[in-house]
């Protein structure tokens, strides 16, 4: 059967794999050999689901957005990942990976973060488990995202500035990888998205798959059917999207819509729309689509939302794009901000700017009246108040 999931070597079509220097081979190999076995252990499943329920606050609601639906003359449901503890879907993955790290006998955690959401989610679970945690964050992002830096510090995490390259997310990821090379035995690297070498994209997608698992039974309750006509999610690296699509990947009736950040416009030179601008290459150990020069140097993306500001995209999404299974739309800063404000005023929900991109598609694309469209509301907008204030002169 044709599948859009990873094969056993971590390939989604031509994308994925593990393009890593030998120094990382033992770490990744240890994880590769054990992750599926550990995830299937009943004791792991029990603890994972218990924490998702009691600590994260799952299941998150699937909410019928009545006024939004009326405005766009279609049926729109919101999957409320913004109501997760720490304010976004990121924690689904960090809960899973911290339990994985414990099973592997690791006693030190490292992570990368851009806007700080994954950093906070990692710092949170490390505090929960009493495990030492170091988060790498670009020096520029540290200055831009002071509240999240403070949150991580309060949670007992050391935030180390990434001083190399462009001093943003891709460089924070490089620094975390370098840390792992230097500490191969005791340390587990919690990657925050469906990126990196195999088995990370598949492992993170599986931890996030709880999102679509819940959508299925919640939609059955509300609409009498498990499958919506469309699932919509924003894509930076692509972890919330991977979770929202997961159980629908191989269901052809469900349309998959991925929304990328066009920044100031696809051809403006300041964009993060990887599907439109990227070419096949290697970034952070994965063969995927990435933004690069003709010479193969990785370029710096731009988006108003720090969470979509990644020059690559997970290999699952590269494959969804290339195969035509997914419909990719890119949304500019301005359209995203407008859509975010519209959601506030129609539904009383302040979304993260990342998520606002997903809502902008209703201005770009028509849906049928009877279509059921599920939008993954991946995060809440508290962290973005500064940006909203500046943009709307509030």
């Amino acid at each position, binding site marked *: 059967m044709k599948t859009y999931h990873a094969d056993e070597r971590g390939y989604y079509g031509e994308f994925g794999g593990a*393009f890593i220097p030998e120094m990382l081979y033992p770490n990744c190999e240890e994880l590769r050999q054990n992750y599926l076995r550990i995830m299937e252990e009943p004791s792991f499943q029990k603890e994972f689901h218990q924490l998702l329920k009691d600590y994260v606050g799952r299941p998150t609601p699937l909410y019928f957005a009545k006024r939004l639906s009326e405005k766009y003359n279609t049926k729109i449901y919101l999957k409320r990942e913004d109501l997760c503890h720490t304010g976004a879907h990121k924690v689904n993955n960090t809960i899973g990976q911290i339990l994985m790290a414990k099973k592997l006998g690791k006693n030190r955690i490292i992570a990368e973060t851009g806007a700080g959401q994954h950093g906070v989610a990692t710092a949170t679970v490390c505090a929960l488990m009493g495990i030492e945690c170091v988060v790498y964050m670009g020096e520029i992002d540290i200055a831009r995202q002071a509240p999240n830096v403070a949150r991580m510090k309060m949670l007992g995490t050391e935030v180390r500035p990434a001083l190399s390259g462009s001093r943003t997310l891709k460089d924070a990821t490089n620094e975390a990888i370098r840390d792992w*090379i230097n500490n191969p035995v005791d340390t587990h690297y919690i990657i925050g998205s469906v990126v990196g070498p195999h088995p990370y994209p598949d492992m993170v997608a599986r931890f996030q798959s709880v999102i679509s698992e819940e959508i299925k039974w919640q939609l059955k309750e509300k609409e009498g059917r498990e499958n919506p006509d469309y699932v919509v999610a924003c894509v930076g690296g692509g972890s919330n999207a991977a979770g929202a699509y997961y159980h629908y990947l191989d269901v052809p009736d469900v349309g998959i819509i991925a929304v990328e950040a066009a920044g100031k416009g696809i051809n403006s030179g300041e964009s993060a729309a990887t599907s439109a601008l990227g070419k096949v290459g*290697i970034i952070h150990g994965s063969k995927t689509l990435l933004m690069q020069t003709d010479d193969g140097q990785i370029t710096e993306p731009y988006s108003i939302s720090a969470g979509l500001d990644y020059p690559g995209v997970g290999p699952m999404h590269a494959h969804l794009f290339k195969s035509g299974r997914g419909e990719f739309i890119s949304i500019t800063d301005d359209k995203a901000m407008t859509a975010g404000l519209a959601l506030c005023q129609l539904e009383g929900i302040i979304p993260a700017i990342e998520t606002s991109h997903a809502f902008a598609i209703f201005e770009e694309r028509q849906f049928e009246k009877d279509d059921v469209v599920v939008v993954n509301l991946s995060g809440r907008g508290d962290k973005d108040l500064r940006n909203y204030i500046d943009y709307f002169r509030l």
Partner: protein
Amino acid sequence: MNRINKKLQEDKKMLSIYFTAGYPKLNDTVPIIEELEKNGVDLIEIGLPFSDPLADGPTIQQSSTAALKNGMHTELLFQQLKGIRKTVSVPLIIMGYFNPVLQYGVEAFCKKCQEIGIDGLILPDLPLDVYQEEYKSIFEKYGLINVFLITPQTSEARIKAIDDASEGFIYMVSSASTTGAKEGFGPEQKAYFERITEMKLKNPQIVGFGISNSDTFQQATQKTKGAIIGSAFIKHLSQKGVSKIGQFVKGIR
């Protein structure tokens, strides 16, 4: 016979030097190679700079960033090296990350290397299995030796597989680290050097990472065929310039 294999037959410890092409100045590539050969260096690794060198520490990162800023790129490096075999006979290896090679086109890249007289490649993030399945025949077609790395954490079975796949030497990373991170060797490294020696591999081993001076060169080569210096050389180059390369090399042996 490939120049690397020929060189390795010599009854001496190999001194291999790594530098980043396009650094300190854009056109230093050829003068650096000529100076290194003049001063008796056995193997030269020409670094093709990459924007995201994730196995490298600060020194090589900075030299890569500076080289790219100076305007270095793949085609330019090939242009600079075009006539290199008129003046230089030492084995030349290009070391870099896989993405720039992939963008150039693996076959086109290898063909260019052969035309210039490059003898081998070190691409740390091109994994063994992918190399064997997709690229080995291309490397062989153009007479290029692919050099693989091993580390203290590499399992015995994998070392054997790497030894089988290698046709020049094995790049033996001295400790779990990025480049330039650690100096000197402790008992752990010595045990590791001994363990590998006892495996009696078919390929000679050349140690890299952590070698910066005469002492560490001696220690690294006691049991192995040679050693590679990168970060320490680049530091010397940034401080003293191309004309003082002889001073650095003589300080090693």
